[in-house]
């Protein structure tokens, strides 16, 4: 693959609104991030924060009946070095990209595989479509893909149906399917959430190996901060449809700058223990830090900062306007008007 210095994907001011009977729901609002070639960018957030809608918007997989309003641009650089806007590309052009240049794996491997086709036929389908191989050559390619993802007895599994495989094996098949056309960008939407922790470790290791071998970029969507810490290069934290903090992974975990990120990390039991050890209070169980309240309804967002009602650092001017994403260092940014102070004041000390 040709080395490029431009970002593989550059998303600028992406917004996805759904027009519903109850009103306009701003699922994704003004989201900008980039993915470097051969690197992994993680989108982190809780349910309803807009991570999955972001990925579906990029792939243009939102249902046509959902009356969506999409704006912004997503500049994707393909193998040939051309830069295309995924959001304005004609559907035919998008079909050439989907499953070919950009592949996607989903959370639930059972519902994303077709139950009435064998595993081999499903992989072969995309190879025939995008690489123009005949049936026999496509099946041979599918077999190589199953071997690539370390499925034991691949020649036999090729002719089996999804229900004959375990959850971990199905996710391997999903990855084989995604890798079949050698994508430059893999979008992985909670790929290990449905899996047990020892199987999750296998799948993450596999994705790491494939990335090292092929140089593909990965957009990793997850709520699991442990997985992010070890498998992402850059992180964007989402809250209520917006990116509230973006930073390289080490900087983010070493010193989160947005109060939401600070709270999210502080409420993990493992971080609580680290603080106890650091303060010499090990053994004396303190309460876990908890972010109070809950995410406000997307139909009635609070005025100003969306996190203000739950934030320990909130001041009256937080309610005036939605804060912009402010620089919090050369490589990072946070959507908080108190970003200058958050380097020292963290929610733990409040």
């Amino acid at each position, binding site marked *: 693959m040709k080395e490029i210095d431009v970002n593989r994907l550059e998303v600028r001011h992406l917004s996805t609104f759904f027009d519903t009977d109850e009103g306009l729901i701003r699922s994704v609002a003004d989201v900008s991030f980039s993915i470097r070639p051969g690197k992994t960018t993680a989108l982190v957030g809780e349910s309803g924060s807009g991570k999955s809608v972001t990925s579906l918007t990029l792939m243009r997989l939102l249902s046509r009946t959902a009356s969506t309003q999409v704006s912004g641009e997503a500049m994707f650089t393909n193998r040939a070095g051309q830069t295309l806007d995924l959001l304005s590309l004609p559907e035919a052009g998008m079909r050439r990209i989907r499953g070919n240049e950009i592949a996607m794996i989903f959370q639930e491997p059972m519902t994303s595989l077709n139950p009435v086709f064998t595993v081999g036929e499903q992989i072969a389908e995309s190879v025939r479509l995008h690489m123009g191989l005949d049936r026999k050559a496509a099946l041979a390619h599918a077999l190589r893909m199953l071997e690539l993802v370390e499925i034991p007895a691949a020649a036999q599994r090729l002719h089996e149906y999804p229900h004959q495989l375990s959850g971990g094996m199905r996710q391997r098949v999903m990855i084989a399917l995604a890798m079949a056309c050698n994508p430059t960008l893999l979008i992985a939407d909670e790929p290990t959430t449905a899996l047990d922790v*020892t199987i999750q470790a296998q799948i993450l290791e596999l994705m790491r190996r494939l990335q090292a071998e092929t140089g593909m970029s990965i957009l990793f969507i997850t709520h699991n901060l442990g997985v992010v*810490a070890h498998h992402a290069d850059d992180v964007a934290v989402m809250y209520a449809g917006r990116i509230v903090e973006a930073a390289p*992974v080490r900087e983010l975990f070493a010193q989160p700058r947005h109060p939401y990120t600070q709270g999210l990390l502080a409420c993990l*039991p*493992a*971080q609580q223990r680290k603080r106890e050890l650091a303060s010499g209070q090990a053994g004396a169980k303190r309460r876990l830090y908890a972010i*109070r309240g809950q995410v406000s309804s997307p139909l009635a967002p609070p005025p100003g900062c969306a996190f203000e009602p739950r934030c320990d650092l909130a001041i009256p001017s937080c309610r005036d306007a939605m804060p912009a994403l402010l620089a919090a260092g050369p490589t990072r940014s946070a959507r908080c008007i108190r970003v200058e102070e958050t380097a020292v004041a963290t929610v733990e000390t409040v």
Partner: protein
Amino acid sequence: MSAPLIEVKNLQRYFGAAAKPVRAVDDVSFSIQPGETLGLVGESGSGKSTIGRTLLRLIDATSGQVLYRGEDLGTASSSRMRALRSKLQMIFQDPYASLNPKMRVKDILGEALQVHGLAKGKEAREARIAELLELVGLRAEHASRYPHEFSGGQRQRIGVARALAVEPEFIVADEPLSALDVSIQAQVVNLLCDLRDRLSLTMLFISHDLDVVEYLCDRVVVLYLGRVMEVAPTAELFAQPLHPYTQALLAASPKPDPEHKSERIALKGDIPSPVNPPSGCVFRTRCPHVIDACSVARPELRDMGKGRFKACIRDDIAGALPVAFVPAATLAAA
């Protein structure tokens, strides 16, 4: 040591045809002391939930005993069991599925009070319901709402209030956090901790989240394929796991810290089918330390001292780094 509150002896629960049963729980024994929180960890299919349900006789055991203060729950009559259920309660995993959508909160809580003849009379009941809602961090005026009007975290609080309504001594909490978002999980963990201390509850905490178990539990039972692999006090288990499965489980769980490079033990393959478990040790098909003797006989749970037990025939692997430990792949330079 005082008499245990709950004692589980050689519990078995098989499902399906007798000729080829699914061995969901296969000869599990442990006890829970009054006031103790015991963690039950394991991956899917390890029998955690089946044990929790069998303990409260929501499903019957195939064989073996569950004793509550020395009384065998398996042979208790249904009227006796109903009386005992006011002492033994459960918090369920899914706060969406475990509350009747057609009942108001006051009826959900009131039904539990009524069945057990507690807080008789309209006023006493309303006062008790208000008290329960406040206990779990909700407000009295929430009593007239329906479950759909609450968020997931609030629903789980209602589930906790329902379990506490009858003043139980013992609670089985079956993955009470797994349906909740991270920021809400911390709220519910704090609630469970507070209530446990205030009401001196004994708890069986079923979870696959090792971090929460480490935070919340006094002792931990590690299950694999329906059998106990290791039992140990929490601090000891996490500091030095003795069983190869526990070692792998701890190593596989990613820590939310990019600087923390744990030794990873790559477990090969999948969990075997409980219909046809491996002979001898059930973990041997994935174990990095397997030897020929592992397939011969089922390893008994052996006392390793200091309240620790393990079901593994090898004593030469604990403590020392096993050969299959591999250094964590270095993080790609940020």
